[in-house]
């Protein structure tokens, strides 16, 4: 079977399972809603103050929400020992990894798209002109988080304290992506010229490439160990 077919089957399986249970997306949305509500009531802000802080709040919500989704990515494979079936399948393990990354990316990006209007409403943001660039920032940062997150989800899935270990291991590595995403989001929301924050977008692209290539290469060893 071709490499692309394997990716398609993994994505199909994860999406159809999620569509039938809605377990991952609903828990991600619920968590993110609480974060938005708590922050919106905690800060009595004017629009300028909101713009300075909102980028960080958005990425705290997106990252921790993403960790919930990423964590479920491989715990679902423990059911009926399905992970053994993945281990024994004679397909390139990199294709399984990319299938999982794609599914995780789709879950995270969907939740981000659903949540962002709530940030706009609760924090009174003006985003009409910046929406295209914001989507690009969300897209690039979500690739980075899902690529490294999927690897650590596979790494921690067999550990008893995996719910604790996943964020403990993942967050230090995700910090560069989060910082670049926060800075690019802040620049976009402030209406800064592209040149002022373009280096953060370039950094996101570099991190995406490094994280995806390294994780792709390491995944086979992790799944087999």
């Amino acid at each position, binding site marked *: 079977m071709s490499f692309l077919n*394997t990716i398609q*089957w993994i994505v*199909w399986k994860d999406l*159809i399972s999620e569509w039938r249970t809605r377990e991952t997306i609903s828990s991600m949305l619920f968590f993110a809603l609480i974060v938005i509500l708590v922050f919106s009531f905690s800060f009595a802000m004017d629009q300028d103050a909101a713009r300075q802080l909102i980028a960080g709040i958005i990425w705290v919500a997106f990252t921790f929400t993403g960790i919930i989704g990423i964590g479920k990515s491989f715990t679902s494979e423990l059911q*009926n*020992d399905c992970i*053994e079936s*993945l281990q*024994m399948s004679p397909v390139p393990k990199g294709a399984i990894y990319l299938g999982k990354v794609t599914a995780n990316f789709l879950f995270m990006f969907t939740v981000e798209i659903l949540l962002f209007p709530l940030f706009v409403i609760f924090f009174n943001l003006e985003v009409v002109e910046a929406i295209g660039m914001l989507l690009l920032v969300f897209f690039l940062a979500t690739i980075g988080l899902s690529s490294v997150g999927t690897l650590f989800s596979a790494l921690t899935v067999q550990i008893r304290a995996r719910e604790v270990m996943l964020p403990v291991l993942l967050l230090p590595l995700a910090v560069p992506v989060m910082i670049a995403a926060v800075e690019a989001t802040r620049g976009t929301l402030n209406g800064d010229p592209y040149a002022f924050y373009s280096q953060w977008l370039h950094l996101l692209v570099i991190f995406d490439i490094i994280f995806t290539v390294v994780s792709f290469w390491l995944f086979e060893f992790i799944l087999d160990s």
Partner: protein
Amino acid sequence: MSAIQITNLSKAYGFYRIFEEVTFTISSGSCFALFGPNGAGKTTLLRILATLQAPSEGQFTIFGQDGVAEKDAVRSILLFIAHGSHLYDELSATENLQFSLALRGQKPDVSQLKRALDQTGIGAYGNLKIRQFSAGMKKRLTLAKAILAQPKLLLLDEPYNALDDGGVIITNQLIQDTMKREGAVVMTTHDRNKAAHIATEGAILQAGHLQLLSPEQLQAHVLS
């Protein structure tokens, strides 16, 4: 021709040795039954052959392929029916078959899927989610997967668990079909009566050592 050749295979967890220096050969066209008490290491040995665990020492080949160095080649010719069903609860029976066979590089058409489900007696439940399946139905679905996959090596861990008489007949038919294709079957079982009908070779794994059984010893063991 030998289907499996195992040489000085040992497995240990830390200082605890499960088995040591196990050496034997299984010929193609045969069904090898592995007996032994709980905790003897039967499932561990099967998992090593399935490439899910690495041996601590020793080596093995499956149809000429090195089980440690050529994992992907070995994986493409074996199917392991384990304690876990390897089925996804939210997918239907048909979808589970399509998915697991796709990961083996196979794409059975609708009629082949239907035939395999009918053959295992669950043809009426093809669109039912696995969440609603009983343990016996799940086992039958894994048999349907094996019928479609047609592996050269079939590894069965306690294959008769959860199966009714009809399921046992289907399992034995699958084993016979694999043997007829010059494949090989390795199974662990406590059910000596059921193994008596089908096993052609056998061994007892006990206290870390493997004792091979001659055909006479095998018959005496399964009938004792």
